[in-house]
C-alpha cells in the first residue's frame, strides 16, 4: 500500500515542482502521439469512409483485415518498423531508427486501422440514412465521402480519441524503434518501464498517474469542443 501513497505523492511532487525532466518527456509523448494520430486521421478517416461507400472487389476482405489489424500487438508493429528502418533494412539509408520520427511511424501504423475501422462504421450508418437523398441530388458515392465525414464529425472525434488512447498508452512499439534514449526518445510509457526496472514502483506509478491525467485532460477538451460545436451547429 505504501507504493500507492508513494505514487500519488511522487506524481504530485513532479507536477508541483514543474520537473524539467518530466516536462521534456511529456512534451515528447504529446508530440509523437498527436502527430501520429493526426496523420492517421488524415489517412484513416477517408479510407474508412471509402470502405463504407465504394463498391470494389476485395472490399469485404479489406474491411475484415482492417478490423483484425485493430488488434495488432504494438510490439509486432515495433518489430516491423524496426526491421524496415534498421541500417540493415530497406529504409536504413534514412537513418531514422531511434528517432521520434520512427516512433511516429510505428504509432501511425498502429492507429490507422483503429480510426479507419471506426470511421467505416460511422460512414456506413450515415450512408444508409442519406443514400437516397444524396443520390437524388446526383451525388455519387465517391463525392459523398467528404460530406459524410463532415456530417459525422462528432462521432468521428470518438474514433480519433480511441486512436490517441492507443498511441499514447502503448509501450511495445516505441521501446523498440525509439530505444528509450534519455532526452531523445524517452516518452511517458518507456520512462514508466525504466522506473519499474529500477524497482522504483512508486515513481513508475506516479508517472502513470500523470499519463492518465493528461489523457483525461485531452479527452475532456475534445468532449467540450464537440459539445460547443454541436451547440453552435444547431
Amino acid at each position: 500500500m505504501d507504493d500507492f501513497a508513494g505514487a500519488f505523492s511522487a506524481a504530485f511532487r513532479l507536477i508541483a515542482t514543474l520537473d524539467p525532466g518530466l516536462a521534456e518527456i511529456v512534451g515528447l509523448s504529446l508530440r509523437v502521439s498527436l502527430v501520429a494520430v493526426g496523420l492517421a486521421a488524415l489517412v484513416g478517416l477517408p479510407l474508412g469512409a471509402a470502405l463504407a461507400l465504394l463498391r470494389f472487389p476485395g472490399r469485404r476482405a479489406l474491411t475484415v483485415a482492417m478490423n483484425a489489424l485493430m488488434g495488432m500487438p504494438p510490439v509486432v508493429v515495433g518489430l516491423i518498423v524496426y526491421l524496415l528502418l534498421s541500417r540493415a533494412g530497406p529504409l536504413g539509408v534514412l537513418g531514422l531508427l531511434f528517432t521520434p520520427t520512427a516512433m511516429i511511424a510505428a504509432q501511425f501504423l498502429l492507429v490507422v486501422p483503429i480510426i479507419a475501422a471506426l470511421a467505416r462504421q460511422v460512414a456506413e450508418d450515415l450512408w444508409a440514412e442519406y443514400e437516397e437523398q444524396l443520390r437524388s441530388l446526383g451525388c455519387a458515392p465517391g463525392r459523398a465521402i467528404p460530406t459524410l465525414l463532415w456530417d459525422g464529425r462528432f462521432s468521428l472525434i470518438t474514433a480519433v480519441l480511441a486512436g490517441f488512447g492507443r498511441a499514447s498508452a502503448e509501450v511495445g512499439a516505441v521501446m523498440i524503434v525509439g530505444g528509450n534514449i534519455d532526452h531523445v526518445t524517452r516518452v511517458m510509457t518507456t520512462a514508466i518501464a525504466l522506473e519499474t526496472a529500477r524497482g522504483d514502483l512508486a515513481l513508475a506509478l506516479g508517472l502513470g498517474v500523470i499519463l492518465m491525467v493528461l489523457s483525461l485532460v485531452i479527452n475532456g477538451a475534445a468532449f467540450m469542443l464537440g459539445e460547443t460545436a454541436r451547440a453552435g451547429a444547431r
Partner: protein
Amino acid sequence: MTLWRYCLALVAALALALPQATEAAERYITVASTTSTEASGLFEHLLPGFTEQTGIEVRVVAVGTGQALKLARSCDADVLFVHHKPSEEIFVAEAFGVARHDVMYNDFVVVGPEADPAGLRGKGDVAEALAAIAAAEAPFASRGDDSGTHKKERALWAAAGIDVGAASGTWYRETGSGMGATLNTAAAMGAYALTDRGTWLAFRNKAGMAVLSEGDPRLFNQYGVILVSEAKCPYTKSESGQAFVDWLIAPAGQQAIAAFELGGQQLFFPNAAGGGS
C-alpha cells in the same frame, strides 16, 4: 477545394513528423549497452562530463547484451558497451568490431528471500549455492533473454552440473525480460536470482530480499567497449565513436567510473589496460 485543403493538412502533418534540421545537425553517437549500466544510473553520471569535453552527445539504447550485439550487427549502433567477453571477442573476430577494450568490472551476486529456504547463506562457492537451490527445488527467476547475465547464469548452472532446461516452468522460471523486471518478479515470488551488483545496489524494490552468495571468482563481471567497424557498417561514426572509446579507457573516463557511488558504495571498478587507477 476540400481535397486541396486535405492535401495541405497532410503535408503540414508530415513536416511535423520529419526530424527537425537542428536534430540532425547535432554530433551524436548511438551506444548499444546493457540494462545494468542504464538501470544503475551509470550513464546519467558519466555522459554529461564526456559531452561537455567533446561536444559529442551519446545516445544510449539499453538492451540485453545479446540484443545489443544484434543491434550492432545490423549496423544500428556506433559503439557497443556490454558484458560478455566471449561474445564480444567473436564480434571482433568476425570483423564487426574494430577492437575490444576492457573498461570496468564488478561482480554478480545470488540474491534471494531473506528466509533463505535453500540455505545458501555462507556458501561462497557459487556452484554449491546453485546446487542447493536445485536440491531444494526453490524457485529461481532466470532472465531467459540471452543477455550477458543470462549467459553467465547458464554457464554457472553447467558448472554446477544441473540441467535447468528440464526444470523450466517448475522451480526454474525464465522471465524473458530485463534485470530489473526479473528482480521484481523474484521479489514477488520469493525466488532466487542471479544479478549484477550494480543493478542490485540501485534496485529500489528489494522487498525482503538479500544477497546470499557472493565472492566466487567465477562471479567476476567484466565490461568491454567496442567500436563498430566502418568496413562492415559504412554509417558508423568512427571518429566520434573512437573518441568515446578513448575517453572511457583514459584516466578521465576511468576516474569518472570510479567516482560513481550509490549509498556510499562504488558500483563499478575501472580496469582498462594502462589507464585509470
